[in-house]
């Protein structure tokens, strides 16, 4: 348990570092943040190994009242899960060679939604298509969210997080409906609002420094880079977004949201990590941290 507590402490510290790096002078330091994510991964692995037994003992389903009563904990649990998985998937190294995050996306969609892979569990995609997150992260099912299926098959269900209303809803075959115990929503009503807000979110992202200079294909010959490259690339590739990069990862951990993560240090760890299921409509981060971040831009 000591290892678990140290790991939890490290995770909290690491998330705080990533958050503060966004406001540091000189921009995000790629090297430092890469190292921090390694610590996050290591801490998470340690914690997972220590809590494997506990996760098996958690009840598969909790009624709405119980869940609402522990809503605050659950929100953070879910968020922590997805973020930790994000980092784990992103810099798995030993665990996995490629980025998956359990996001059920086809390879065809990969590039389009690629921008959100790194933050798939929490951020709204700037693309017009549905945006997503692995249902496993927010699933009502009894399977542990630690065990994310790594699959490229497109699922019928996708969970959507609206950053503005902070409402988590599940999309099934294009129809929005809230997670269990909540009222279903009509897609027509939700979509326009969603699209409009997504535009705001786009500006909120800290994109890869090379957002305006996409360089996805490595060249096999000596490359001459002139001072005109910036302008040309911006005009031709402004629609392309680099997928799942550290900057986006960092953007997941918005300026306001991380304060919540820090606060759960004081909470009962057993409670937080014991519950792996989220079965009701819940409001993530009731504070205006996310909103503040968006307003800043």
């Amino acid at each position, binding site marked *: 348990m000591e290892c678990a507590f140290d790991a939890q402490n490290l995770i909290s510290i690491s998330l705080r570092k990533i958050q503060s790096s966004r406001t540091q002078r000189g921009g995000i330091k790629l090297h430092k943040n890469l190292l921090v994510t390694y610590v996050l991964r290591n801490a998470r692995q340690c914690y997972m190994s220590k809590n494997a037994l506990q996760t098996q003992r958690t009840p598969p389903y909790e009624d709405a009242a119980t869940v609402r009563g522990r809503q605050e904990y659950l929100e953070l649990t879910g968020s922590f899960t997805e973020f930790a998985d994000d980092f784990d998937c992103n810099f798995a190294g030993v665990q996995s060679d490629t980025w998956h995050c359990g996001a059920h996306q086809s390879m065809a969609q990969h590039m389009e939604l690629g921008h959100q892979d790194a933050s798939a569990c929490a951020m709204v995609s700037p693309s017009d298509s549905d945006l997503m997150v692995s249902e496993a992260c927010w699933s009502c099912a009894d399977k542990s969210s630690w065990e994310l299926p790594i699959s490229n098959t497109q699922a019928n269900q996708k969970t959507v997080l609206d950053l503005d209303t902070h409402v988590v809803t599940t999309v099934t075959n294009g129809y929005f409906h809230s997670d269990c115990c909540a009222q279903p929503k009509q897609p027509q009503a939700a979509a326009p609002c969603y699209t409009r807000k997504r535009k705001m979110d786009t500006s909120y992202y800290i994109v890869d420094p090379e957002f305006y200079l996409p360089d996805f294909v490595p060249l096999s010959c*000596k490359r001459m880079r002139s001072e005109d490259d910036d302008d040309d690339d911006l005009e031709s590739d402004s629609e392309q977004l680099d997928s799942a*990069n550290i900057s986006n990862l960092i953007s997941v951990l918005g300026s306001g949201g991380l304060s919540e993560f820090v606060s759960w240090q004081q909470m009962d760890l057993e409670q937080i990590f014991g519950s792996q299921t989220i079965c009701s409509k819940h409001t993530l981060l009731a504070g205006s941290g996310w909103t503040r971040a968006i307003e800043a831009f």
Partner: protein
Amino acid sequence: MQQKLLNEAMAGVAGGNDFQWCFSQVKGAIDEDVAEADIISTVEFNYSGDLLATGDKGGRVVIFQHEQESKNRPHLRGEYNVYSTFQSHEPEFDYLKSLEIEEKINKIRWLPQQNAAHFLLSTNDKTIKLWKISERDKRADGYNLKDEDGRLRDPFRITSLRVPVLMPMDLMVEASPRRIFANAHTYHINSISVNSDHETYLSADDLRINLWHLEITDRSFNIVDIKPANMEELTEVITAAECHPHQCNVFVYSSSKGTIRLCDMRAAALCDRHSKFFEEPEDPSSRSFFSEIISSISDVKFSHSGRYMMTRDYLSVKVWDLNMENRPVETYQVHEYLRSKLCSLYENDCIFDKFECCWNGSDSAIMTGSYNNFFRMFDRNTRRDITLEASRESSKPRATLKPRKVSTGGKRKKDEISVDSLDFNKKILHTAWHPKDNVIAVAATNNLYIFQDKIN
């Protein structure tokens, strides 16, 4: 008695027996409140050792020049006095990406001197500049077309002609930017290195290395690119790069994974595939949360001979033989006592400090910095090491530096300092060794200490 024994044991590092370091000079303000702009971020001797350049976080470059030895005190080497000061880089704002570009000077590298002027390269996170530092000690006097104030004279009032005469004037050192190499790095530049051909140099950022020609600013060749097609596959970044001192086709770059790659530019236009790969297998028993951080290499330096290279990671310095890739030939522990403190050092960000290292002129000794204003020297021949401190308290002229020791056990001896008493805000990240003599420059926050050997 114990101190005397300690002194005798420690003496002899870097230069043979009866060798001791003594204080020479200290530059910088004495104020307790240190302005961040004054923090020294790089130190570099030129090829002859006559000039010593420092860069700071405020984007300024200060060059010190070695004065000739005094006839009155021939046993002392001359002092370094300010030669030139100029603002190299200014803070900039990238409006496109909404990013501020720091003016901090990351590296200074001198060019070999080819005429009366001196040239150096200085870089911040994004832009490299070539500066010409030249002296002017004469001025022309007696122009026909303009008077002494510089105003043009009425040509119709000129009744006679005279030849302008060069008159001596007070020495003026001018620094002018001759080339600006910009817009070639998306990520933060961490290294620049002048090639042995004296025509090209390389610059490295987190993911790419570019090769420049000193005369051409509007283009550079990208010779290393480790950016993956999908950034989610990123697992390491470039942390340092250097050209081989003699072979203009060879360079090395280190990574955050603790590996070093040697590349030959003759092999391919794009040197993504290395010629040699240096890596020491990790000891599984020492695995911790911070294994990746402490194995990240912060500096790599070729020896003057070109046969060896040295790397610095968080806790140690390693010397590699270029002919042996599977392990270093020498490993020196800088501050192993910090291994049990990594969690605290992670919390206060000290674990991310990037220490540099340097060789002495004969490659017989190496030096690197530590915390509490300590710096360490290792004699490669005798395998002796010494810990010295750069402090104002021991800054009396010609005062011999007393070796310091950090106590790791429970019982602290006299004159030892315990690990918990170390001041982690006082860190020596940048050091430089004179290319020929036993003179060292040590940057301690905003102060530059110069020490020299005391020849007995």
